[in-house]
């Protein structure tokens, strides 16, 4: 789960990580008032208006603007950015609508550093990565000159060792006494934050050294480990439904994992691996999957029904492939769910069903007696070929 920059910075502040003064704003009026308060508090007429979307690369996309002319200037920028369709390298070509702003004190930047904490799954450790070449071109740096990125791994028994933090500080050119003190304190806070908040990624790009020589987190990107939601009830308030696919969100609520894709063959499958495999085999036979959908191992009739309805409701879906290898999943439960869903919404596209495993005969019987036009498949390969052919035929007709 991702959160916004301003939320990340609020969390950082709790761990003693210096961030600029700032306030979120949901309207132009709020943005104006926030700019007013900031300018009064800091005595500096410069504020930055920052679009709050979950994707990065906002600066290059025109979503981060400096207002040098005081409140009126900030208001004008807020008017421009709020509501815009912001396109960045991370949003994809459709972009993301800006619904929230962050109004922040403008800082005098001496230099920009890259700093990130993430899980290195191959080493099974938290990795800390940093580079002197921070700022908006870090992807390029990582690609062209990976040696400019310093990495260290943290042993969970010892935690972040002070010497490791110092070593990284020296590598980043922060050897001066006061800067080193600030940097090691910040890194310690960030590591504690990563653990306590169950993050899977914390990225500060840029971490800046100000003209005065202070170290401040100027950006903040935080992703949480979805599995840890069980011990973080507070995440519910941090979630921004506007940033998520509504269908994926609905699926999650009923315990189904769903990802929208851009093809036209809907898939209903049990198990994540088989669900991926089903997409792959559709692609192999010349079709295009409309979604990844795993109803889970022990789905109920209600869940199957919900899942099937989600597929049916999408108007891009021109055919549906149900592929079940019932381990724990009972085929009769799947069949009941499918029939119940079509009773409410009807079925106007071809449906191919492959059932294998527990209670397969009972499942087939339920489908046969439903009166629905269902083509049954003898194997996964057979089913994929049948649905691809049916959709092609539908398109030709």
């Amino acid at each position, binding site marked *: 789960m991702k959160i916004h920059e301003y939320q990340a910075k609020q969390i950082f502040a709790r761990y003693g990580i210096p961030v600029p003064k700032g306030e979120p704003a949901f309207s132009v009026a709020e943005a104006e008032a926030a700019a007013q308060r900031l300018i009064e508090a800091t005595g500096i007429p410069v504020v930055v208006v920052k679009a709050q979307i979950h994707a990065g690369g906002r600066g290059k996309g025109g979503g981060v603007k400096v207002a040098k002319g005081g409140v009126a200037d900030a208001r004008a920028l807020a008017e421009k950015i709020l509501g815009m369709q912001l396109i960045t390298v991370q949003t994809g070509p459709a972009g993301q609508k800006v619904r929230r702003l962050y109004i922040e004190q403008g800082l005098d930047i001496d230099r920009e550093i890259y700093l990130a904490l993430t899980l290195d799954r191959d080493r099974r450790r938290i990795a800390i990565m940093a580079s002197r070449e921070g700022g908006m071109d870090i992807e390029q740096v990582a690609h062209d000159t990976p040696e400019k990125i310093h990495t260290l791994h943290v042993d969970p028994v010892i935690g972040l060792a002070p010497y490791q933090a110092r070593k990284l500080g020296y590598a980043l050119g922060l050897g001066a006494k006061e800067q080193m003190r600030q940097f090691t304190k910040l890194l310690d806070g960030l590591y504690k934050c990563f653990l306590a908040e169950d993050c899977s990624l914390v990225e500060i790009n840029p971490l800046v050294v100000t003209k005065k020589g202070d170290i401040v987190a100027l950006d903040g990107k935080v992703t949480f*480990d979805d599995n840890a939601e069980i011990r973080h009830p507070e995440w519910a308030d941090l979630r921004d439904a506007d940033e998520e696919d509504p269908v994926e969100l609905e699926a999650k609520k009923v315990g189904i*994992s769903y990802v929208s894709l851009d093809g036209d063959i809907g898939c209903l*499958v049990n198990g994540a691996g088989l669900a991926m495999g089903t997409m792959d085999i559709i692609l*192999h036979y010349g079709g295009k999957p409309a979604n990844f959908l*795993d109803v889970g191992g022990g789905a109920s009739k209600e869940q199957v029904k919900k899942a099937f309805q989600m597929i049916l409701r999408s108007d891009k879906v021109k055919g549906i492939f149900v592929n079940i290898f019932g381990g724990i999943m009972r085929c009769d439960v799947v069949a009941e769910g499918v029939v119940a869903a079509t009773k409410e919404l009807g079925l106007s596209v071809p449906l191919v069903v492959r059932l294998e495993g527990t209670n397969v005969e009972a499942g087939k019987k339920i489908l046969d007696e439903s009166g629905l036009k269902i083509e049954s498949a003898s194997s996964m390969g057979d089913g994929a070929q049948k649905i691809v052919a049916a959709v092609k035929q539908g398109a030709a007709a």
Partner: protein
Amino acid sequence: MSILVNKDTRVVIQGITGEYGSQHARACLAYGTKVVAGVTPGRGGQRFEDKVPLYDTVEDAVKKEGADVSCIFVPPAGAADAIVEAADAGCRLVICITEGIPVLDMVKVRRYLEGKPTRLIGPNCPGIITPEECKIGIMPGHIHKKGHIGVLSKSGTLTYEAVGQLTALGVGQSSCVGIGGDPVAGMDFIDVLELFNEDPDTHGVIMIGEIGGGAEQKAAAWIKANMKKPVAALIAGRAAPPGKRMGHAGAIISGGKGTAAEKIEALEDAGVKVAPTPADMASTLMSLMK
């Protein structure tokens, strides 16, 4: 023969009285697995289904019933603790079925197991089966058949798919191991391949991987240098978009790394034959087995 478990394996099930745990404990017992104990704190002295003795701790189950392998159905919040308890009680093998354990818990657990004799399979996996001898986990027993093919996989349902295909061809399995789909887990592909390589009764292997991380690439390098037996593979997720988690916590292409293409290339370079679709896993292996 087989790897890791056989008819003499004595299993303790942690979380045996929960809904999920009891359902699968029953299926394991029905398959013939020696489930010798269950552990549910507070239920020590009682019995599961009038048969299996319950204990408060894994240590008691090991001492009193001689359990050597533990299977865990404990919910995510307590699962890491359950793994540590099983290791401390001296279980040689711990199989964790639980899905949804916070990844930082697993980072600590893996560190804790370093240097200890306990092996961990999973979490977020279907378990392990040696057909007609011992089933530990949630896989449907009836699709398996005793034989000489080893199966190892990150995905439960794709394992069943592979096993179903083998059995339909009349080809049996030595052991089938689900290593799970989490980013930080216990035994990886190489750990299991080493065992299959040394097992005289395993004549060929099907390895099922998926997008995300670098375990398949590392396994490919290991196979190239060490594997004496034919290997067929499948990589799930060719059609998956980058940056999206595909069900499994670990199944995500991030920063352009961990793509299916990259993994397939590494495997083919190692002499592994990669099945063109998930429907061809068994036939791909059999084409190497003549």
